[in-house]
């Protein structure tokens, strides 16, 4: 399934433009949406779930246009895990999933089979009789992920699923996303760069409602090549002086001084070298342009 976004704009009643004339093509597989808080990622995702109507432009799911008359058909193909989701605290994990499955129109037998399958896949089978309020943050996210998958969606929209989770849970959620992305289009929004580095090959970087970059991870890394430099300075005063001159993306105390990562279009006027580039370096470079 392909999602096509053309000249999309979302302006709220208070005049704030959250998404500003953006174009995007989301192909099958995991597509990352990266950007700082308030960049417009969630608004864009809410448009794609049909929860928000755009003020301009158009969106299409394959050949189906996002129009009121098509919403029913579009919604059937979508699975959504919002950024914040507080599932029924008094229900057990299984009851909760059965309830949501029933509401989404999945036949009872198929729903039970899918719940069994996904509970096992997400290592929640042994916790299925626990009440939702007794689960840890990571477990709740996993249950949230299962609810998004119950109707076997072709288009899965996942909004910041790893926020607030410990590293182990984050890795688990990321791996699950990769497992579940087979034969699906997955839009994965986050502001944690390493989550995307570990899961997707294509991404878009968003800031203030517009895309700063859309393309492959490799191309983004290539773009940043030659603009990231590493140097070591003797003390903090030297580092501060360099900060006045260059954009410093990271600082680290090392033996004999301080190691700095500098973003610069040309080679800085101090002894420095080019490091092995990470997606985070490339992201910071794009954001600093």
């Amino acid at each position, binding site marked *: 399934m392909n999602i096509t976004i053309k000249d999309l704009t979302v302006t709220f009643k208070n005049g704030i433009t959250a998404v500003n004339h953006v174009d995007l093509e989301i192909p099958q597989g995991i597509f990352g949406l990266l950007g700082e808080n308030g960049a417009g990622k969630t608004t864009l995702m*809410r448009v794609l*779930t*049909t*929860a928000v109507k755009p003020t301009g432009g158009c969106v299409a799911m394959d050949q189906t246009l996002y129009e009121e008359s098509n919403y*029913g058909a579009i*919604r059937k193909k*979508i699975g*959504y*895990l*919002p950024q*914040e*989701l*507080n*599932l*029924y605290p*008094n*229900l057990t994990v299984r*009851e909760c999933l*059965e*309830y*949501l499955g*029933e*509401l*989404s*129109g999945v036949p009872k037998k198929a729903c039970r089979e899918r719940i069994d399958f996904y509970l096992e896949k997400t290592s929640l089978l042994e916790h299925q009789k626990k009440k939702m309020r007794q689960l840890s943050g990571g477990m709740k996210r996993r249950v949230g992920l299962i*609810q*998004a998958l119950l109707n076997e969606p072709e288009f899965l929209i996942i909004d910041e699923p790893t926020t607030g989770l410990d590293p182990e849970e984050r890795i688990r959620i990321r791996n699950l996303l990769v497992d579940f992305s087979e034969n699906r289009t997955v839009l994965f929004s986050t502001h944690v760069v390493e989550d995307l580095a570990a899961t997707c090959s294509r991404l878009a970087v968003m800031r203030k409602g517009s895309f700063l970059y859309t393309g492959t991870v490799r191309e983004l890394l290539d773009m940043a090549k030659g603009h990231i430099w590493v140097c070591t300075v003797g003390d903090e005063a030297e580092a501060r002086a360099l900060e006045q001159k260059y954009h410093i993306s990271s600082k680290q105390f090392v033996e004999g001084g301080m190691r700095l990562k500098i973003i610069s279009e040309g080679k800085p006027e101090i002894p420095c070298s080019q490091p092995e580039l990470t997606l985070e370096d490339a992201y910071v470079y794009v954001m600093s342009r």
Partner: protein
Amino acid sequence: MKRELKICLPGYKIVYSLCYVVILSFIQGVAFVDEIGGALDANLALLAVVFCAETYVMERNGKRNEIIGLYPMGRKVRMVFRRMAVQLLYLCLLSYGGFFFFFWQRPVNLGVNSFWFLFGTYGLAVTATILFWGMLSMTLSNLFKNQWAGIGLSAALWLVVVYSLGKSALGNYGIFAYGYRSLTEPGEVSWLLGKGIGVLLAAVMAAGVPCILKKRG
């Protein structure tokens, strides 16, 4: 239905509703069995208002509204009706039981109507009351996407109807006409008109649920 029971009737709601009726039985003095229905009817309306306000807006409070928004409308409407049915049934059963909570005051029967007539008519009256005020509170909460708006507006209407307009302007057409009925007239049921209008309005509000869910999410 078991899941609706767990969602709509959490422990705290059962505790506060029971406490409410017990407290009413302590603070509302009754000398006659005939007065019990009147003492409970209008006050149970307030309980229904608070109880039913969150029926659907709880999805918004729990940030579940965006996933619920993807579900077919028919299923959402059925969900709301099932939740309302569970809550209204509970409130009705509590109200019927609440009638007997007043007997610690040792009220006597005036002798105008039999006990079973008094209890039966009270049952009818309070059922209509709960139906109307529960639906009203749920509808207003959904319209304003906020349970406190639903509770506040319903409570404001309750104040108007129960005090100033109740008896003088609406007469037997009022939802609380039962509370103003003559206790000395045998078989007095003219208040049924007001309750009938209440049930009719509740039905209209129920019919409007799909439209409100569509427009207001």
